[in-house]
């Protein structure tokens, strides 16, 4: 594998990690506040559909993004209603939300577009394009010289290759996702809101005693979760791919959940976990079977590896993953 191939694999890693990272941070906010969320998948799927649908109808990807976020936040509100207000089982609510999204997206897509549960392909302003950094080789240079971008990049020095291929040229949502990591860290660990949010996931009674609303904090966390899942879904349908297809999240919500556990509910580690799982996806996408010193690793191992690694981490053989203490427990005020 030469250097340029490696860069290309890393480039695709970044693209594939982005939805995982956004969903993972979404889950981080929710679970740190004590609300388990296995409905990340459903929220992403709903956002993917509505962003693609609105972007295709209006021709504006930004309106699509807003619609996707709104759709995701409606489901987040439903999860909040079930698990905070009515103190229902958070896991069952998550399962219901996943099915609701899987069914509703196809139902509405069929009703609106009649293309077998997909949206029309997005073109032009209906899709997020790549951001070209100054000095990086991009489509503009290709047009000017009349040679393809890949050829131009192959002809330059390694540092410029990294800059042009790996760092520059992604859609704006990719940069948003990676900037969300320090932002999440700062909010959770350097602000009063973050302190309270973490406290409500560990010991809600203490937060309640100090006169802060447990319900309000948990709804805020669930809303942030909805926002981030919405961006993740919109990225899938309007940046990574051009339009919505049935079940397009394909288990990414669960990989994000796995990454969250793998990272033991911490933002920076979440980024590394998502990059690792994105890297596995990139490898599986590029190579069917990998030959490592005579032993052929089938592609199915790559598919299953994130889940296997998560089970190993959960089992506590490699450092123990301890969830927020009040996670999954509805808070009942003492009377």
């Amino acid at each position, binding site marked *: 594998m030469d250097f340029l191939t490696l860069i290309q694999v890393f480039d695709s890693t970044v693209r594939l990690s982005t939805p995982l990272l956004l969903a993972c941070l979404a889950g981080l906010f929710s679970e740190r506040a004590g609300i388990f969320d*296995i409905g990340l998948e459903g929220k992403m799927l709903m956002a993917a559909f509505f962003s693609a649908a609105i972007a295709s109808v209006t021709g504006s990807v930004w309106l699509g993004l807003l619609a996707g976020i709104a759709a995701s936040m409606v489901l987040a509100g*439903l999860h909040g*209603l*079930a*698990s905070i207000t*009515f*103190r*229902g*089982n*958070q*896991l*069952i*609510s998550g*399962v*219901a*939300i*996943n*099915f*609701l999204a*899987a*069914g*509703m997206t*196809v*139902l*509405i897509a*069929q*009703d609106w577009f009649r293309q077998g*549960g997909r949206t029309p392909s997005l073109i032009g302003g209906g899709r997020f394009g790549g951001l070209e950094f100054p000095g990086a080789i991009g489509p503009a240079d290709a047009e000017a010289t009349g040679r393809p971008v890949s050829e131009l990049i192959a002809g330059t020095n390694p540092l410029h290759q990294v800059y042009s291929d790996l760092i520059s040229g992604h859609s704006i949502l990719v940069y948003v996702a990676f900037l969300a990591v320090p932002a999440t860290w700062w909010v959770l660990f350097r602000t009063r809101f973050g302190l309270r949010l973490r406290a409500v996931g560990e010991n809600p009674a203490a937060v309640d005693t100090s006169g802060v609303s447990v319900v309000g904090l948990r709804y805020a966390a669930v809303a942030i979760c909805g926002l981030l899942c919405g961006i993740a879904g919109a990225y899938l349908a309007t940046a990574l791919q051009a339009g919505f297809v049935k079940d397009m999240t394909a*288990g990414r919500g*669960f990989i994000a*959940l*796995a990454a969250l*556990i793998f990272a033991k509910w911490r933002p920076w580690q979440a980024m590394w976990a998502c990059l690792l799982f994105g890297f596995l996806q990139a490898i599986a996408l590029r190579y069917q079977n990998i030959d490592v010193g005579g032993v052929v690793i*089938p592609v*199915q*191992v790559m*598919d*299953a590896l994130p*889940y*296997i690694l*998560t*089970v190993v981490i*959960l*089992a*506590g053989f490699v450092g123990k*993953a301890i*969830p927020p203490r009040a996670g999954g427990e509805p808070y009942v005020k003492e009377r």
Partner: protein
Amino acid sequence: MDKMPKWADVVLIPLISLILAAALSALVILAIGEDPVAAVRLMVSGALGSTYGWGYTLYYATNFMFTGLAVAVAFHARMFNIGGEGQAMLGGLGVALMCLYVPWPHWTLALIGASTLAALFGAAWAAIPAWLQAKRGSHIVITTIMFNFIASAVLNYVLVNLMRPQGSMDPATARFPEPVHLPTLHELLAPIGINFSKAAPANVSLLVAVAACVLVWLLIWRTRLGYEIRAYGHSETGALYAGISPVRITMIAMLISGGLAGMMAINNVMGEAERLVLNATEGAGFIGIAVALMGRSHPFGVFLAAILFGFLYQGGAELALWTSIPRELIVVIQALVILFTGALDNMVRMPLEKLFLSLRKGRA
């Protein structure tokens, strides 16, 4: 003192939840420009109007009885087994191995052999998450979700690389030999003079599923082990104080649960497809969650809920065939049932409890 009579808890709340789910589904059908009354009529005639329809309804119901019981048994021990899907996939592998590589003289023996290995494979797939929960405290919901994905990767590998016949492009095993063919309801009912549709896939495993309902009922309410499982589910500390080992109960409950989910394969793999294909389970493991919630984790409730979902599945297929309503409507209905009977249970329960309390006060 109970806040409300038992009949309200067992009958009224599920009924109200079901009505809410049905009403919302009707709104969804209206919103996509179809007539809900006509849709229900079409579903009833398509699923229950002929022996062909009944044959499909009962075929789906058989799947859902197994997976519903699987979730219900785990619920009794206060565990949420989302892994029914993966356990049923592995069960399918067990059935395929038994049917393809053992020369069975008669289908009865084949059924016993195949269901044993299916149950063993399903139980084995549930055993690892169970052990991790019991010994290492890893959350069983997360591990069983992960094991669903691992199961589908394993099955994919086995079908593509190991069990696919030479020269076949399809990731599926060879067809099972003739002696392991399970009699369909047509073949079972013909000797006693009942003419049942030949084309419908319902088969003898329906009887196995019904027997499983009875056995689970006996186990949960009539044996010492069942008592221990329920005691553990009600209060872990209480059970511990009574000398019940949490590790033992967790393991046993999950093994039974996984075994039941695995046994679903005698219906869909051995009875219907007669070969193992990718995605043979078609989400039945997840429908088991809705079935168990609606059936209040009672085997008789699971039996009824499974038939209801069998009806919805067959009716939904008919809808997709004759109208512009896609099959995914069933997924929406399933989601609403899970939402109302599971997550939003308190939304129905709280006002009802208040109502019954005020009624009682009025009388006193």
